């Protein structure tokens, strides 16, 4: 599966898609990128006159790249006959530490390394880096893939 095809399987609408491109993809992990554009809807309110990307959105960005995208790829590798276009993911746990804020117009890179993928549960070590290659946040995310 090409990375372009993979992106078409993502179940998000444009207002809640936090992934622009995938740079690396294998059965061991994934690396993807996202640009937090200044006009994104949440900056006007988080915070008033002091826009900064909410931590929950950073987690969402990490989950979309590190669990959902990666999970769809793993499912397609595991069983090539499986219909992956309807794949969804329920986030089941997140333990994330934050180190740096992400301001409007920043570009981030998300790197996710597999811990295990068993019985449709995907657990990964995930980190986010900013364009200076500084650690923004890292931790462990798990989710259940539904097909």
């Amino acid at each position: 599966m090409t990375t372009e095809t993979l992106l078409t399987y993502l179940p998000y609408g444009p207002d809640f898609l936090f992934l622009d491109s995938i740079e690396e993809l294998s059965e061991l992990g994934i690396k993807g990128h996202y640009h937090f554009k200044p006009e994104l809807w949440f900056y006007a309110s988080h915070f008033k006159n002091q826009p900064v990307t909410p931590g929950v959105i950073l987690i969402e960005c990490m989950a979309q790249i590190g669990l959902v995208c990666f999970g769809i790829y793993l499912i397609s590798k595991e069983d090539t006959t499986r219909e992956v276009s309807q794949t969804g993911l329920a986030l089941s746990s997140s333990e994330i530490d934050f180190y740096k804020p992400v301001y409007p117009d920043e570009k981030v890179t998300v790197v996710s390394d597999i811990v295990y993928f068993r019985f449709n549960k995907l657990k990964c070590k995930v980190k986010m880096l900013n364009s200076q290659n500084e650690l923004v946040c890292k931790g462990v995310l798990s989710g259940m893939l539904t097909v």
Partner: protein
Amino acid sequence: MTRDNIYQTLETIISEYLPEDVSKESITLQSNLTNELNINSSHLVDIVLDVEDAFKIALTNDDMETMQTVGDVIQIIEQKTT
């Protein structure tokens, strides 16, 4: 390994994943893991992986589908360890 030994080990594993409002005393052979013990699908996988480690067995998707109650899990462990 006796059925009692299996039960005790399994009870310890399951109790780690019980929600706060479900007590360890609620665990019986007849307990349904998801409906009665309120274990979510993610923790069900954790239990299966812990069972694999504790009893040194490998479980399949089919095994997982038959694991409805605590008794079902014990039966599968017995099959795989004998």
